């Protein structure tokens, strides 16, 4: 790193931004311009290189000195990973699609409205312009706000490497806290969400410290089909209540074919509060998260009646 002569001495003692960030200045970044180039770099460096897309998670860690890598593979220029397309039964969302693009997309608004809703709650505009859905998926935070929607929709993650492309069911994608089934040389290409079918609705609910810029205390997404107050099918997913984003299969089966009324709703919501396994941490307590899980489901179910 270089010090300017005029400020050099002072800079040694003051925590200037570049000193805080000095490790990053030793890093190489490759900026492949095609997916094949990215695959080749990943094959060469495997886990010795870190992929960077919008940087909204990774740069935070770097600025806090919690992450350093000698090599970065900057995939921001890979336009083949951008775009939202209609595939008939499903919507395909390229990994580099930003939250702003999801919010603005008529396809998402129509066929996966909960995903647009979730995107609106992520960070604020500056983050939404840069953060990507692929980044949210691979960052693998249990608090990732788009993830419960993808889980509730039974989405599919498309990953690629020199070995080819494979598809992984979203609900098989995470194996533990910040762990995924991806190999070190693989990269997320896209995520596919089935379109809402006639009679199906999606719901999203997040509780954070405030409306913007908040990391979730609890986040929930539901996809359900009801006929005259009777539930034909329901998928319930939550974030920030377990080591990974989770589905709530017990509560789902409790609700299958149930006719919604106050008692059924309360029973299911109470069951959910026991099914989740939250912890107490800097953002909230286990007790609070169980209660809010219950209340959030009750709120969503009462909108279906």
């Amino acid at each position: 790193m270089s010090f300017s002569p005029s400020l050099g001495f002072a800079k040694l003692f003051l925590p200037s931004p570049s000193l805080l960030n000095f490790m990053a200045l030793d890093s190489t970044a490759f900026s492949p311009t095609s997916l094949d180039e990215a695959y080749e770099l990943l094959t060469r460096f495997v886990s010795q290189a870190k992929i960077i897309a919008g940087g909204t998670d990774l740069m935070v860690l770097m600025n806090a000195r919690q992450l350093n890598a000698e090599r970065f593979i900057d995939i921001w220029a890979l336009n083949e990973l951008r775009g939202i397309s209609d595939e008939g039964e499903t919507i395909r969302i390229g990994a580099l699609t930003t939250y702003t693009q999801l919010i603005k997309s008529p396809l998402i608004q129509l066929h996966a409205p909960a995903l647009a809703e979730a995107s609106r709650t992520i960070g604020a505009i500056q983050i939404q312009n840069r953060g990507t859905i692929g980044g949210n998926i691979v960052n693998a935070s249990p608090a990732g706000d788009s993830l419960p929607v993808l889980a509730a929709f039974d989405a599919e993650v498309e990953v690629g490497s020199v070995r080819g492309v494979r598809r992984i069911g979203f609900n098989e994608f995470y194996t533990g806290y910040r762990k995924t089934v991806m190999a070190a040389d693989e990269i997320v290409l896209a995520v596919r969400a089935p379109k809402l079918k006639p009679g199906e609705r999606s719901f999203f609910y997040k509780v954070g410290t405030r409306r913007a810029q908040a990391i979730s205390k609890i986040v929930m997404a539901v996809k359900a089909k009801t006929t005259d107050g009777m539930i034909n099918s329901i998928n319930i997913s939550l974030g920030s209540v377990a080591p990974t984003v989770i589905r709530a299969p017990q509560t789902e089966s409790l609700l299958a074919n149930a006719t919604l009324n106050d008692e059924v709703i309360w029973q299911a919501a109470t069951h959910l509060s026991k099914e989740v396994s939250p912890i107490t941490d800097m953002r909230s307590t286990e007790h609070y998260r169980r209660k809010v899980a219950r209340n959030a489901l009750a709120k969503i179910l009462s909108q279906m009646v």
Partner: protein
Amino acid sequence: MCIVSVISVISVAKNVCPNLVWSDLEAKKSMKLNFRVNGVEREIDAPPMKRLLDALREDLRLTGTKEGCGEGECGACSVIVDGEALNSCLAPVCQMQNANIITVEGLARDGKLDPLQQAFLECGAAQCGICTPGMLIAARALLDANRRPSRDEIKEAIAGNLCRCTGYVKIIDAIEQAASAA
């Protein structure tokens, strides 16, 4: 790292990546970047993972852009890149090749303040001033996309910008005034 191992890494990578040119692999410590800042073509040599914030402040001496939190929470470092506001503390400079960047220094034209700056002055929308460049940039990005925003849309647009002095009301008033004057 010793020179031999650097060379061996480069040569192996070169074999695996026939499409990559030498200059990509030699970009170990710095790379040449060309972008447009406030309407002027600029070229800098910088480490690829240097933050855009630091490149602006240190390499280009544009110190109007401030660092607050360094983690994308406060918005003080906001700049407009290709028409969209972003946090320059979270953007590595290698992603700025050929970008069109506007910082707070680029808002005034020909010695005349941007209507937003004028309105901030008139409404008393700045106290300590650390958030002001980011507020102005977030507001500029809003008005460029939406010339007559509602009060709620203004709040949404500056939701990623923290101010600890004014309580936001005067800032929102100022943005509203600038929008209605335009």
